């Protein structure tokens, strides 16, 4: 049985021993955090129609999926993404269920072609949450607060950076410059790779945007509130301004919760512009060479499944988190499950609401943010 049967396909692996135990305890503790915020677990199909993912993630990403045909000839895929599946369920199975919907999942996703050197895994496990049917800064803050609690529980909060952006900042500029799709894409790429010099040259072709130099510098830096005030001075169009307002109100809440050291504003984060519709964020922790999670608002997705409604969510990469924690000397003490009644929380402003939420969560109380009454 040596030879071919011993061989493991590229990008696949086993987990055992301390690594498997650590994986399990990270998973359990994250699921318990989700439960503490009143998220219900959902298990989705592993195989579904390729068209669903193509629709849900966009063609370029869905293209990486393992694909094969059903007995009737239709194209199937091993799920490359869970959000598409959850969004479809929200619009169909859960159509009659009261909003907002809070759903979470732990599920392996598969891709046939790795996207880059560092993403060598072809099977990786995502832990994610989706908050569907609420369009408020309180909903955005809720998912960010959950991310913070996760990082705290894993003892990763002192060496992390959660970068915030809003895709409408870029979209507003592209609209203002009246960019055609190809030029818009070119600009997106220059911003995404922080290629300030070329971006400046690019912007100079469209004389309507003044200060192209300062703007090109702006996307090269990430920072705190100062980035927002700099951006306000440089970007005048109403669409971008509205996005900056949203970021500002989130940032104020973050500051008053004394969480500002974990967050950065990064206007250069413009990956997946066609998918996200508002807030986007990426999660980096020291010891991981790539991001360990990402998320954002995707108000456009559920419409394609027949019911338009706002949604915000995020995923964390279990494998990446395990790698980081395995390298640490001490094994973290993880699980603390929530108990008792669910406390319904409401308050007139974001800071009070989430200060209360975080306090109750440190006591492992189960809470539910009342988004219908929360501040907009």
């Amino acid at each position, binding site marked *: 049985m040596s030879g071919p049967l011993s061989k493991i396909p590229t990008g696949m692996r086993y987990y055992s021993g301390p690594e498997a135990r650590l994986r399990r305890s990270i998973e359990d503790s994250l699921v318990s955090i989700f439960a503490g915020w009143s998220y219900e677990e959902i298990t989705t199909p592993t195989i579904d129609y390729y068209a669903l993912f193509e629709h849900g993630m966009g063609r370029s990403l869905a293209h990486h999926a393992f694909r094969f045909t059903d007995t009737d000839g239709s194209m199937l895929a091993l799920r490359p993404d869970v959000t598409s599946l959850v969004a479809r369920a929200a619009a169909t199975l859960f159509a009659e269920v009261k909003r907002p919907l809070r759903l979470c999942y732990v599920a392996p996703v598969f891709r046939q072609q790795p996207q880059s050197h560092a993403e060598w895994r072809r099977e990786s496990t995502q832990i994610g949450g989706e908050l569907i049917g609420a369009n408020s800064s309180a909903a955005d803050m809720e998912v960010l607060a959950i991310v913070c609690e996760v990082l705290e529980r894993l003892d990763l909060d002192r060496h992390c*950076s959660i970068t915030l952006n809003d895709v409408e900042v870029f979209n507003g500029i592209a609209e203002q410059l009246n960019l055609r799709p190809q030029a818009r894409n070119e600009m997106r790429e220059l911003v995404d790779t922080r*290629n*300030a*010099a070329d971006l400046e040259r690019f912007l100079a072709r469209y004389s309507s945007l003044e200060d192209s130099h300062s703007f090109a510098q702006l996307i*090269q830096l990430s920072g705190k509130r100062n980035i927002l005030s700099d951006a306000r001075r440089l970007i005048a169009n109403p669409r971008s301004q509205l996005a900056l307002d949203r970021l500002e109100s989130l940032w104020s809440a973050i500051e008053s919760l004394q969480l500002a050291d974990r967050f*950065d504003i990064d206007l250069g984060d413009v990956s997946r512009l066609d998918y996200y519709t508002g807030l986007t964020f*990426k999660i*980096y922790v020291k010891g991981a*060479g*790539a991001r360990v999670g990402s998320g954002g608002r995707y108000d456009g997705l559920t419409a394609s499944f027949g019911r338009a409604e706002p949604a915000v969510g995020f995923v964390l990469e279990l494998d990446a988190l395990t790698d980081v924690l395995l390298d640490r000397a001490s094994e973290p003490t993880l699980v603390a499950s929530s108990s008792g009644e669910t406390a319904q929380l409401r308050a007139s402003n974001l800071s009070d609401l989430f200060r209360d939420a975080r306090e109750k969560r440190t006591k492992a109380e189960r809470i539910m943010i009342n988004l219908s009454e929360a501040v907009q």
Partner: protein
Amino acid sequence: MTQLTIAVAKGRLQAETLDLLTGMGLVFSSEALSSRQLAIEDGSGSYRLIFVKPADVPVYVEYGIADCGIVGRDVLLESSTDLLQPLSLNIGACRIVVAAKIDAQLNRLGMLRVATKYPRIAARHFGARGVAVDLIELSGSVELAPILGLADCIVDVVATGKTLEENGLRIVEVITDSAARLVVNRASYQLEAEALGQFIKSLEDTLRRRASDD
């Protein structure tokens, strides 16, 4: 204190890169430079250089083993990498070209045999023009291929054009210009924002100073 690890492409770019870094005020002992050590630190301990093959620079940076790297654009175009590219450095300037024998007439209507070290760049270039190609991947002395009849043309990097000329080849088409670039790991960019920000700024200043000296 944070120490930044910089991956430096060995070979063609290495001397120019070191020249640029010392121009920024980094100090490397002559022993370290003349030794065969693959990793050296600067005098202040703020930077560690690792010397790797050009094609490996994006790999080290993408995994986050190096926070940033200096490598030719040709290498980046040939590999699929997800890196930040905040600066174009005006060192290592060259062109990526299609070249053939001086008297050759390329028949683009049939099948073109193309010898190259850059199969992806070549495939993309001819693909965009709808030309069918047989890509012959070589690892060196690509200029020989058309002369000996292995290929109709080559796709290669040309700095001065002297090698082509000496081998009786001419440039048919310039695919793109290339120069060295600073590439940065996405996670380091956020987590080591301060140190990298300083490094990038000081690199920029040095480039500007050199440009005005010329």
